[in-house]
C-alpha cells in the first residue's frame, strides 16, 4: 500500500473549495475542490487545458480565484499574490527551473535572502559565505542531495541536480506545501529516480506535495493520491493503491468517474 502515511488523516493542510476562475467569458476552473494533507503527495492530472496550471496558479498566488475558498490548516486565507502564498508556506518549483545558471549553488539557494555580516549593518557588510555554505551543506545532506561542489555554477550541473536544488530552495523557505510542475520532464531515468526519491523524502518529513506530471509511470511511483481534472472541472480522485493506469487515463480522456455512477458531466 503506497498510502502508508500516518499524516494522511485529520485536517487537510490546504483545502480548496469551489474554486472557479474565468478568463473573459471562458471558465478555466469551475467549482473545483482540492485538498492536500501534510506528508501527502497528491498528483494533479489532466490533459492540456484541463485546468491544472490554473488551479496551481490560484494556489501559488499568481492568479487568485474568482470564486471559492482556500483554507490553510482550517483557516481561510487570501492568496492574492505570490508573496502571500510564500508567507503561507506554499512554494512552487517550476518546470523551467527558476535557477540562475550563472550563480553557484549556494547563491541560488540563498537568492533573495542572503545572509550578511558586518559591523555597519546595511551600509557596509559582506555576504556571510561561510555560514551560507554550511547551511546549504546541512540542508542538502538532510535531503540526501549529492552535489560535489556548492561553489560550482549551476550551469555545470546535471538536470537532476538542478531540479534537486530548486526543490531544496523551496524546502529552505520553510515550505509546508511544495507545488512541483513537471519536475522530471527534462530528466533521464537515473536522475528522475533521484528526484522521485527526494519527493518521497519530503513527504516523509511532513511536507505536502502537489505533483503535476504527464509521465504516468512517475506519478504511480510517487503519489499517494491522484486528482483528475478535465475542462476545468474535477472529474474525480483515486488513491494510488486502489487504481491503475488504465482507469486514470480513461478518467482523463472521458472526464467521467466510473465509480461515481452518473459521472461528472463535462
Amino acid at each position, binding site marked *: 500500500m503506497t498510502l502508508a502515511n500516518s499524516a494522511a488523516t485529520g485536517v487537510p493542510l490546504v483545502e480548496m473549495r469551489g474554486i472557479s476562475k474565468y478568463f473573459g467569458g471562458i471558465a478555466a476552473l469551475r467549482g473545483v475542490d482540492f485538498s492536500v494533507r501534510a506528508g501527502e503527495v497528491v498528483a494533479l492530472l489532466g490533459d492540456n487545458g484541463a485546468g491544472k496550471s490554473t488551479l496551481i496558479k490560484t494556489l501559488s498566488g499568481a492568479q487568485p480565484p474568482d470564486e471559492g475558498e482556500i483554507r490553510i490548516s482550517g483557516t481561510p486565507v487570501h492568496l492574492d499574490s*505570490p*508573496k502571500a502564498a*510564500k508567507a503561507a508556506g506554499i512554494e*512552487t518549483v*517550476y518546470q523551467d*527551473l*527558476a*535557477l*540562475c*545558471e*550563472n*550563480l553557484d549553488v549556494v*547563491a541560488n539557494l540563498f*537568492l*533573495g*535572502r*542572503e545572509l550578511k555580516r558586518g559591523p555597519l549593518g546595511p551600509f557596509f*557588510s*559582506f*555576504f556571510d559565505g*561561510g555560514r551560507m*555554505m*554550511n547551511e546549504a*551543506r546541512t540542508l542538502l545532506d538532510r535531503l540526501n542531495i549529492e552535489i*560535489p*561542489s*556548492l*561553489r*560550482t555554477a549551476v*550551469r*555545470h*550541473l*546535471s*538536470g537532476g541536480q*538542478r531540479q534537486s536544488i530548486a526543490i531544496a530552495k523551496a524546502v529552505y523557505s520553510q515550505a509546508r506545501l511544495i507545488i512541483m510542475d513537471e519536475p522530471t520532464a*527534462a*530528466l*533521464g531515468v537515473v536522475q528522475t529516480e533521484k528526484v522521485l526519491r527526494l519527493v518521497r523524502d519530503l513527504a516523509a518529513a511532513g511536507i505536502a506535495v502537489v505533483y503535476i506530471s504527464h509521465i504516468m509511470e512517475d506519478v504511480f511511483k510517487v503519489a499517494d493520491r491522484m486528482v483528475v481534472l478535465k475542462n476545468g472541472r474535477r472529474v474525480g480522485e483515486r488513491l494510488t493503491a486502489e487504481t491503475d493506469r488504465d482507469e486514470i487515463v480513461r478518467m482523463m480522456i472521458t472526464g467521467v468517474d466510473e465509480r461515481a455512477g452518473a459521472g461528472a458531466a463535462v
Partner: protein
Amino acid sequence: MRPSSESSHRHPSVVVWQLVDKLGAIAVLVLILIGMSIFYADFVTVDNLLTIGVQATTRAILAIGVTLVIVSGGIDLSVGTGMSLCMVVMGVFAINWEQSMWLAGAMAIVTGAGIGLVNGSLIAFAGLPPFIATLGMLGIAQGIALMLSEGYSMYGFPAEFGFVAAGTAVGIPLPLIILAVIALLMAYVFKQTRLGRYSYAIGGNEEGARRAGIPVRGIKIAIYVTAGALVGAASIVLASRINSAHPGIGFGYELDAIAAAVIGGASLQGGRGTVGGAIIGALIMATIRFGLNVLGMSPFVQQIVIGAILIAAVYLDIVRTRQEVRLSRLRAH
C-alpha cells in the same frame, strides 16, 4: 567550510574555462605590449605605462559602470554623450555661475545619476529595451550638452582643478589612485552587496530572480543610477585632463567602454562580468590606442580599428556562450 574538497571536485573543463576567463584578457594585454615592443624597443617603459594607465582611467571608470549594466543583461549606450553632459553641467556651475569646483563636481555626479535614473525607469517601468532607451538618451544627453554649452568648449576651470588629472600622490598619478578607489568600491558592490548579486541573478535568469522575490525593477534602476554616477566621476577626470568642458568629447566613448567591458569578460547575454575585467579591458583599449598613435595611425583609422575590436570581442563572446549552452544541455540529460 571545506575549501580544499570544494575546489578539488571541479570538473577539469570548468577549471580551464575559468582560467581563460580570468587570464585571457591579461594575456592579450601582455601580448599587445610584447608586440609593440617588437616595433619599438622602448615602448614598454614606466613612463609609457603610466601614460597608458592615466589615459585608460576615464574609459575604465565608464567600463566598470557599463559592466554592471551588462552583467544584468542590459546595455548603456548613453555613457559617452552622458559624460559630455556631466562635464558641461560642471562647466555651467564652475565657470558660468562661478560656484565652487566641489559643488560643480558633485553636480556632475548627480547629473550622471539622473541620466541613469531616467534610463533605468524607462527600462524597468516603461519596459523599453535597454538598447533603445539608452540610444534615445545618447541623443538627448548630446542635445542638452550642446544647448547648455551653446556648442562651444567651456574654459576657465580654477587652476587647482588640473591637479585631479595631473597631480600625483607618493609618485602615483592621481587618476590611477581615483581609479583604484572606484575599483575597490565597485568590487565591493559587485561581490558583496545585494545590488551586485542581484545584477548577476537578473542577467542569469530575470524571471527566476523575480520568482525568488528580488525587486527586479528597483534593482534595475539602481544599476543604471550607479553606472550613471560613474559617468559623472569619469567626466570629472576627463575635464581635468583637458582643462575644459567640451560638449562633443564624449561621443564614441560608449564604444570603448562597451568594448572594454566585453574584452574584460562581460557577456552581452548577461550574467557575467567583473570589475577587474573591465579595468583590464580598458587598459587593452588604451594600449591599442596609444600604440596606434605611436605607429602614427590617423584617428580616422583608429575608429575603424576600435569598431572592429568591439565586433570581434562580441563575436568571441557569442561563440563562448554557444559552447556553454551546448555543454549545459548535454549535462542536463
